[in-house]
């Protein structure tokens, strides 16, 4: 799932006609102060990182004058917010509001169709509202063949109990949000809060737009907005190698093929008393180069003490994987971390023959391979 930054989402929403506060992006303290002067006080200075709860973590501050703007910008730019470095802030006119609403569109996977949501309890974590008081959120399912009818937007807004004075405008925002979600292949589109001012204007004070990765091929404009080096270095490397990879806390590295089987391998490491260091799915039909890249990934993780390599070949051929493992390991004078391999399925017997047992430990079953790797990792830590 590709997440747009707040400033990017606001640009997309604003272009579609949803009112947003006057704002400017800034990368330095001076730029932020200049922006605040141009917009006029009070302003909100907001860290542009993709993480929830920015306000509580000190990533959003209000400023009433130049001195406060400078102080806020100095404290936010360069800060470390929940593990992410802040290198940009959005400086934005602070909205004087009387109400905070929530509007959102997402895919209800259980129903297999989109759902639009409205609540008068905006401005707070909507998942918490949903858990505590599900009735506080009005939901309207949409037939994807027709899109959202205007009456459905009105129905959601009235059902949620939105003030009649602004109901028509809020319904308009929801209709536009649905169209954007639909046009841009959104997985989630949200405005929280959608602020209502004393003179009855509605304005999007925050903006969330997450896009389906699988649909980025038809949205080159959005694909360009994707952050290159977001998050962990190893996760960035995985991106480059085109692996499904998630880094965890443990010391047993895991490489396998197929999401379900790799997850199962993680679970077995845990079951046999070890701690998984990562999820790494090399996918189907793994070529020698991918095998070698996968080993490189797991070896570069300092936390890893031993590796379990588990392949069940359907499309993937065991002999090819074995050659890849040999080639990758032959490059080292000394194998950086012990590797336990188990091959099953298509051409696995040939694969087992090919594997160089001077370089790897070979096991016949998944259970034995996992226990082997857990034991090798323990040897290293002792």
């Amino acid at each position, binding site marked *: 799932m590709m997440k747009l930054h707040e400033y990017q989402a606001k640009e997309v929403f604003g272009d579609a006609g949803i009112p947003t506060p006057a704002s400017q992006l800034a990368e330095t303290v001076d730029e932020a102060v200049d922006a605040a002067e141009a917009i006029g006080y009070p302003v909100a200075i907001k860290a542009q990182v993709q993480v929830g709860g920015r306000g509580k973590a000190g990533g959003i501050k209000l400023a009433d004058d130049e001195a406060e703007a400078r102080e806020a910008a100095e404290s936010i730019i360069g800060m470390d917010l929940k593990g992410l470095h802040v290198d940009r802030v959005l400086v934005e006119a602070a909205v004087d509001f009387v109400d905070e609403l929530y509007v959102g569109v997402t895919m209800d996977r*259980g129903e297999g169709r989109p759902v639009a949501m409205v609540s008068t309890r905006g401005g707070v974590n909507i998942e918490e509202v949903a858990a505590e008081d599900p009735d506080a959120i009005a939901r309207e399912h949409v037939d994807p063949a027709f899109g959202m009818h205007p009456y459905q937007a009105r129905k959601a807004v009235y059902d949620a109990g939105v003030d009649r004075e602004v109901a028509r405008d809020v319904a308009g925002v929801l209709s536009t949000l649905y169209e954007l979600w639909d046009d841009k292949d959104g997985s989630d589109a949200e405005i929280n809060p959608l602020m209502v001012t004393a003179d009855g204007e509605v304005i999007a004070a925050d903006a969330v737009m997450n896009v389906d990765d699988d649909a980025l091929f038809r949205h080159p404009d959005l694909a360009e907005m994707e952050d290159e080096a977001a998050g962990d270095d190893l996760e960035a490397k995985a991106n480059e190698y085109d692996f499904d990879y998630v880094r965890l806390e443990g010391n047993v590295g895991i490489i396998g093929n197929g*999401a379900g089987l790799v*997850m199962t391998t993680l679970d077995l490491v845990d079951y046999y008393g070890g701690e998984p260091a990562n999820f790494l799915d090399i996918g189907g039909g793994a070529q020698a180069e991918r095998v070698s890249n996968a080993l490189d990934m797991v070896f570069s993780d300092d936390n890893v003490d031993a590796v379990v390599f588990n392949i069940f070949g*359907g499309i993937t051929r065991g002999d090819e994987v074995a050659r890849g493992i040999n080639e990758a390991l032959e490059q080292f004078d000394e194998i950086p971390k012990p590797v336990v391999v188990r091959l099953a399925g298509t051409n696995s017997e040939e694969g087992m023959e090919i594997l160089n047992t001077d370089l790897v430990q070979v096991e016949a079953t998944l259970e034995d391979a996992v226990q082997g790797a857990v034991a090798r990792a323990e040897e290293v830590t002792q």
Partner: protein
Amino acid sequence: MSVLVDDDTHVVVQGITGGEGKFHTEQMLDYGTNVVAGAVPGKGGQEVAGVPVYDTVDRAAREEDADAAVVFVPPAFAADACFEALDAPVDLVVAITEGIPTQDMSRVYRRLRETDTHLVGPNCPGVITPGEAKLGILPGNIFSSGNVGLVSRSGTLTYQVVDNLTDRGLGQSTAIGIGGDPIIGTDFVDALELFEDDPDSDAIVMCGEIGGEDEEEAARFIGEYVDTPVVGFIAGRTAPPGKRMGHAGAIVSGSGTGTAQSKIDALENVGVPVGDTPVEVADEIEAIL
């Protein structure tokens, strides 16, 4: 007997002229599957592995009596291919393609509900009735004919569990890989219903994983309607919240739904034993039969 496919299933392969389509058509034919046609726009009149190719699924179904379609079409065109198969119509569509945009599948799903067709997938390994036919990319050699029905969200995990079953001499009636996407056609409940009605499936293995609530729904369905003994397995016990574990559907949401534990609890509450390892699943099935 079996469910969904047997040696009488007449298969049209959509995307038969592509690399994967061609390779797996050969594999399916080797296994004994009755592949009667291919369908690729603009390639009508050609032959692949001795199978005649037509420009449309409609034409292939009419000329060759195809009643099932396997989709090997690239993601950008796969939803269109599913619509084409649904409208032909055929009785069964198996969509192998990985990476179809979710909103496209939402529209396919909407159309599917108006038809009597079974759609398996997308992003799945397919369906196999051992000894009779396979539709998809499953490695035929690990399966053996028998009386255990199997339904799973993951391909390679299916192979692992089947391997453990076959090792013990526990053959399979039919194995259905339903796929790991957020929106799929045949879900656990549909598959359980098919196996429950199949007199030759004496036990059922259900392999789920984190994400969504399909396993919980399946547990409710088992509690009410399924008399055939079921054994479960759930992958992703160690998955952290908010991270997508490979499959687009495999994500534990921040609010704690879709966890392995909630699925295991739901199944155990209706008397379904859940194995800690794939071997334990085979142990349980052996004890039941």
